[in-house]
């Protein structure tokens, strides 16, 4: 329908705004978790992603994801609607094209925010030790070769969508980005830390969060923004959006409790870092599933995701990879939990609702393919950058603090004694 639905449009404008806010929320969530000497760099990885990905999305991101010229179901032609031209978003008279009641230009904004946050998620694995320039280049390459194709495959009618080859088994479900966003980012994080290596002192020195209220506030902003992420993905201001909203919030609530119980039993303490992490784990898990569960199913999913992720974040110590802020433990594991549990919990087609195994099987296939593609693409980009620009800052910069070394700043005021030296060059 080419007629504008102003209620839907209002909701999508809000949803886009909410999802945009998630990235600074993430910056705070991550920033609070690193040591005080690296908080600015940590936040700058998110803010840098907001810069480059925001530009790239308008230039070729939309065209590669949702353009009309699919290349083998893997990605769409980046040049077709380059710079939002080509008549895909605006008609000849420059008017915004309306599709299903929504001006497509609003959808562009909404989708751009997903690209930004997905890239930013990865940075959690790279805390305290990575060159800012390499990161920015990585962001451009990865969003181009890993994210836009995955969005095309899952949501743009490509390989992993309802129009793809696996849909014969059952229609695969990724409501708001379990594969595209979380599995994708989680795999990328794992591959990168293996390439880049650990922080100096990892596993020996304590690396405690320098500001836990920031972590909690960041988690809260993520929760808030996630309403746009999930309920916005209903592309309607209607009952489906309402269901997604309630499932999202309920899963987050349940995952807090799932995580805290797990910690309390294991460590004897229910921590604030656990509550904040539980929130994110629940939100991740419910992302692909928000439209397919009953609210009681969302409670179950949240409890399981909270508990499993609480266990999974310890793996890095076991296996010795420095996934510094647990992108793997929370986003990969949480994304898998959500993607696969849809097979059981979906009210329409899930095993527990008499739907048989088909949905579970297709969900596992989808997840596996996504892991494979994301892994290979990230590996190539990661190794290429290692060979060329290099990933790591110098040891001195890392030990002395990356904020000072790379950004020339200290996050917090400290004892006086600075002298203004250079005349400002204006």
């Amino acid at each position: 329908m080419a007629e504008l639905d102003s209620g839907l449009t209002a909701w999508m404008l809000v949803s886009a705004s909410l999802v945009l806010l998630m990235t600074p929320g993430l910056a705070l969530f991550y920033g609070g978790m690193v040591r005080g000497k690296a908080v600015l760099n940590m936040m700058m990885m998110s803010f840098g992603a907001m810069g480059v990905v925001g530009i790239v999305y308008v230039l070729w991101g939309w065209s590669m994801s949702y353009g009309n010229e699919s290349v083998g179901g893997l990605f769409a032609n980046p040049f077709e609607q380059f710079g939002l031209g080509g008549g895909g978003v605006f008609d000849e008279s420059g008017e915004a094209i309306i599709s299903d009641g929504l001006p497509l230009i609003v959808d562009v904004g909404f989708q751009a925010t997903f690209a930004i946050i997905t890239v930013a998620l990865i940075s959690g694995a790279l805390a305290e030790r990575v060159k800012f320039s390499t990161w920015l280049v990585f962001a451009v390459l990865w969003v181009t070769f890993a994210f836009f194709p995955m969005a095309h495959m899952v949501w743009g009618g490509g390989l992993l969508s309802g129009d793809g080859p696996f849909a014969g088994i059952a229609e695969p479900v990724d409501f708001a980005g379990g594969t595209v966003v979380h599995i994708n980012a989680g795999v990328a994080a794992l591959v990168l830390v293996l390439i880049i290596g650990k922080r100096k002192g990892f596993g020996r020195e304590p690396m405690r969060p320098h500001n836990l209220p920031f972590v909690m506030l960041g988690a809260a902003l993520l929760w808030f923004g996630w309403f746009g992420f999930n309920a916005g993905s209903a592309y309607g201001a209607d009952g489906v959006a309402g269901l997604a909203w309630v499932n999202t919030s309920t899963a987050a609530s349940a995952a807090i409790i799932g995580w805290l119980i797990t910690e309390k039993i294991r460590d004897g303490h229910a921590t604030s870092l656990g509550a904040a992490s539980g929130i994110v784990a629940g939100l991740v898990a419910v992302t692909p599933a928000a439209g397919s569960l009953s609210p009681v199913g969302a409670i179950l999913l949240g409890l399981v995701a909270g508990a499993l992720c609480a266990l999974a974040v310890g793996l890095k110590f076991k296996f010795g990879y420095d996934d510094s802020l647990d992108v793997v433990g929370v986003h990969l594991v949480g994304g898998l939990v959500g993607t696969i549990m849809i097979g059981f919990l979906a009210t329409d087609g899930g095993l527990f609702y008499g739907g048989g195994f088909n949905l579970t099987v297709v969900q596992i296939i989808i997840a596996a393919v996504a892991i494979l593609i994301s892994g290979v693409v990230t590996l190539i980009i990661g190794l290429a950058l290692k060979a060329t620009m290099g990933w790591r800052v110098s040891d001195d910069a890392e030990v002395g603090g990356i904020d000072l070394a790379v950004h020339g700043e200290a996050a917090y005021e400290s004892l006086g004694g600075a002298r203004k030296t250079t005349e400002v060059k204006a």
Partner: protein
Amino acid sequence: MKLVTGVIQPHRLDDVKSALEAAGVRGMTVSEASGYGRQRGHTEVYRGAEYTVDLIPKVRIEVLVASEDAASVTEVIVAAAQTGKIGDGKVWTVPVDDVARVRTGEHGVDAL
């Protein structure tokens, strides 16, 4: 003159300050410190990793006194800071050659 330094539990600071005032001490310098000693540190937990933190918050008090007052000031601090629990801290005395008051440039006991 002497410099009496006390490292005490933070929550005893107010009482020590009052006791010193009552004993006629008119000035002191206070700063934050962390102590390591017999007192067992606490455990912090972050995402399943447990850390033992063996540096415990303390407060350092420095009081410049006339030599003859060093012993009594020490006793005042000990008495006021004491809770009887491990970790109560130490008080020590160091000889001082000279003291100057910045505002006036006075030296010696007058500068206290």
